[in-house]
Every structure is written in structure tokens, then in C-alpha cells.
């Protein structure tokens, strides 16, 4: 129960970070928080409802792997964006077309 509430809180905090941050990497960090919280929620709820722990853990493992891939792609986009125009802040991306 405490895990469920805690994960909901962590998810909401991650969402807040995504909404308010201006720095791309910090936004990604907020998204990582949301993902992690959702993942724990997945396992905790599955176990709380009497699911097979092996299945729950296996799926969470896949989520971890996929999320890592997502993070790698996201960060590479950020770094490339920075290299191609020294842009790492959200509002600067509106200028892409103008250039």
C-alpha cells in the first residue's frame, strides 16, 4: 500500500519536472523518474493482486531494458542538438525553422 502511494507521488513529481523544466536533459531525468515509478507500481500491484512474481519481475525487466534504450536515444538527440547549434533548452528549439 505504501509502495502504491509512494509511486503515485514519485510519478506526479516526475510529471511536474517534465512540465516545468527548461533544460532538455532535466526533462529527460523527469521522464526517467516517471518511468521508474511506473515500473515499481507495475510490480507492486501485480504482487498485491496475487500475480506470479516471476512474470511481474520479467516484465519489469523488459521495461527497464526498453527504458534504457529510450534514454540512450533521447540523450543522443539532446547531445546532437547541442552540437549542431548549442541548443539544450526547450524554448530555443522554436528557432530551428528560422535558421
Amino acid at each position, binding site marked *: 500500500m505504501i509502495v502504491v502511494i509512494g*509511486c503515485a507521488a*514519485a510519478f506526479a513529481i516526475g510529471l511536474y519536472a517534465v512540465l516545468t*523544466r527548461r533544460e532538455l*536533459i532535466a526533462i529527460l531525468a523527469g521522464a526517467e*523518474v516517471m518511468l*521508474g515509478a511506473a515500473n515499481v507500481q507495475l510490480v507492486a500491484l501485480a504482487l498485491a493482486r496475487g500475480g506470479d512474481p516471476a512474470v511481474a*519481475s520479467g516484465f519489469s525487466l523488459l521495461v*527497464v531494458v526498453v527504458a534504457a534504450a529510450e534514454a540512450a536515444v533521447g540523450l543522443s538527440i539532446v547531445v546532437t542538438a547541442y552540437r549542431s547549434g548549442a541548443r539544450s533548452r526547450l524554448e530555443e528549439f522554436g528557432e530551428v525553422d528560422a535558421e
Partner: protein
Amino acid sequence: MSASDITLAAAVAAMIAGAAGTALTRDVTRLVVSLGAFLLSVAAIFLIVASSLLAIAQVFVYVGGVLVLVLFALMVVHRDTDERVGLDSLHDIGAAAVAVAVFAGLVALLLPLAGTTGSQTRALPNDIGAFLLGDGVVAFEIAGVLLLVALLAVLVVVKGGEDR
């Protein structure tokens, strides 16, 4: 409350603190340390409730991999400035309201589901392996393909950036 309940509560508290630090700090290193604390406490929760293999995977992939990448990217983006740049955020009441609403909705939705007591056993590595290569083999293979695609995507993105 048993000892394991206390450890679990501590891990959840650390998780929320790490998340809050990630969302609110203005300092680059504190962001990384907060995110690290968050990811490690997620691993701790996994260790307590689900399986040690999952916890180790969390440490291996996230703390040893993703977090290093985040810090690496931060160093690349923020390095050639003399003073330390803060990570600013546009705090506004709307975003906070949305976050609180999401929190309330999630708790209202999920808490009733968690009411029943489920299994207390933890998964052994062998069971997880049996699942991944048994019933979950399709998902497992798709995840593998996705990883390969992500690898190629990173290469394409980075090479494209170099050409420009």
C-alpha cells in the same frame, strides 16, 4: 510493523526524496545525485518486494548505464562556461495543479486494487529466466529487436549531427 516494513518505508521515502530532488534542484551535480538516489531506492524496493535479479538489473542498467549517460551529456552541454550554470525551471501553479491532480487520480484509481493481499514470495532468477524464455519469449525478442533499433538510431542521430 515488522523490520521489512520499516526498510520498505525508508526505501519509499528515499524514492520520493530522490524524485523531488530531481524535479526541484538547480544544481547539475545535485540533479545527478538525486536521480541516482531515486534509481537506487527503486532498486531497493525491487529487492524487498520482487526479486534480487530485478534489483541488480536496475543497478546495472540505470545507475551504471543511464545515469552515467545523463551525467556525461550534462558535462558535454555545460562544460565550457566559467561559472556554474543553474538548471532553471518555470515553476507555475498550473503544472503543480496538474501534478497534484494526477497524484490524486492515481491514488484513487490504484489504491483499491492494492487492497487484497497477494503473494509474499520473491521471484528467483531461474523463474524469471523460465518466464522470459517461456511465455514471455515474444516480448523478450521484441525488446531485443528494440534494443538493436535503438542502437542503430543512436548511431544515425550522432552521425547525422556530425555531418551538419
